């Protein structure tokens, strides 16, 4: 047996023993959670069989989780329950007496069309369902974005550049408003595709890039905190709930 293989077996034996001891001392539930946490964290060192185990388990469990949620949360109440309520009477008695909604046949047909791609020669028909989905998205988004992100943003950015308060001219606020106004304009210039970034236009685009860089740096720095608290939460679980070293 090679040396690396030996080490691997020693580590494996150690993990098994530690797991058994932990189950005996702390109970199975918290132990499972703690070991899975450690397995995931071990990825930071390098890829290893323990991470592989956690990863593969996670993939399997999560895929089934969403299938079940989709089945009981959407398929049963919203499709069967609306199409033919008596059918779900056994599992959702509350819906039994609702009137049927015949229009729900549309998603049923589209869903079946989608599954047709499993059939060898009728795969193309699944595109009808897809066309429906994409058409819906396009139609909804077209108006929604125009409304809330385009027109509403004009409204939000239309403010006075000259601010005076009770104490007189407010230099700080005026500067801030000017920076926002110019920042938005130059940021937009950067996004022009069909005009070369040259001359005055190019200068505007340069300012635009600078504004974007400030945005990216600031957003990044700002998020660090939230990410750290996630880790604190995990560490509290490991050292507090599991090892009992906190408090």
């Amino acid at each position: 047996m090679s040396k690396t293989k030996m080490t691997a077996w020693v580590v494996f034996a150690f993990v098994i023993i530690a797991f058994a001891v932990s189950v005996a001392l702390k109970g199975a539930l918290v132990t499972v959670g703690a070991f899975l946490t450690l397995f995931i964290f071990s990825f930071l060192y390098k890829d290893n069989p323990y991470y592989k185990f956690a990863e593969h388990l996670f993939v399997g469990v999560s895929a089934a989780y969403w299938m079940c949620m989709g089945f009981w949360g959407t398929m049963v109440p919203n499709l069967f329950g609306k199409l033919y309520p008596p059918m779900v009477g056994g599992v959702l008695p509350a819906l039994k007496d609702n009137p049927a909604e015949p229009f729900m046949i549309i998603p049923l047909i589209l869903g079946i069309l989608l599954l047709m791609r499993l059939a060898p020669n009728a795969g193309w028909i699944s595109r009808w369902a897809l066309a429906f989905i994409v058409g819906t998205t396009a139609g909804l988004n077209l108006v929604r974005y125009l409304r809330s992100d385009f027109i509403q943003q004009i409204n939000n950015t239309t403010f006075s550049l000259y601010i005076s308060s009770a104490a007189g001219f407010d230099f700080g606020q005026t500067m801030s408003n000017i920076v926002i106004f110019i920042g938005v304009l130059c940021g937009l210039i950067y996004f022009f595709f069909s005009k070369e970034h040259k001359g005055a236009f190019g200068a505007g685009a340069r300012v635009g890039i600078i504004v974007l860089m400030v945005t990216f740096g600031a957003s990044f720095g700002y998020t660090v905190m939230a990410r750290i608290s996630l880790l604190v939460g995990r560490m509290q679980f490991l050292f507090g709930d599991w090892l009992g070293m906190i408090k």
Partner: protein
Amino acid sequence: MKRTVPLAITFIVGTVLVLADFIPHKPFGNLGDDFSLYFDIIAVFAFLLGGGNLIRVHLTKINRKRPDWQFSIVTLVGFVVMLAAGIFKISNPEGIQGDVAAIGSLFNDLYMYIFTPLQASMFALLAFFVGSASYRAFRAKNIEATILLIAAFIILLGRTPFGLWLTEGLTGDLAFLQIPNLANWVMDVPNLAGQRAIMIGIALGVISMSLRVILGVERTYLGQDSD
């Protein structure tokens, strides 16, 4: 036929939904919500495709003894156990009529003690990666990178008592230069301007993309007439 019908469906559905947005009257007013509900249902049918594909991928891996095939067994076992627990509502305190994720059911236990710790741990990896990414990327290599670095640095410093301590001497008219104040200003002013410019660009992109899809100019998602 294979290509025209889908394009026609997209065109009709898209146009009707655009118009429906301006008509509150029945049945148009609810059309957007109705179609979104249809989409949710179709998505559940797609879960069957996904689950089937998952099983196929991992069975192939096991069959052909590809590298790490043993772990595919873990995936399949996890999948099947969770699926059975959920679909048959195993050990659900209220039986088959209970909520699928009712407390005390096997499904909820698997969720609470396997799914949740795994998810939280993956999420927590981010704390480490923000560290390594900022070490590598925040270098004053050129003007853009320097600005990125300065903005991030001000915000980070503004979050620690260090920031205040360094600049406590600046009072009166210069108080706005105190790092915590500066950090707030960077967040509220240039950051806002940049975000807004990006948002407007995205809005225009979405609008244009949606029009292209409705008009049938953008059609890669439908594939070619290959089969």
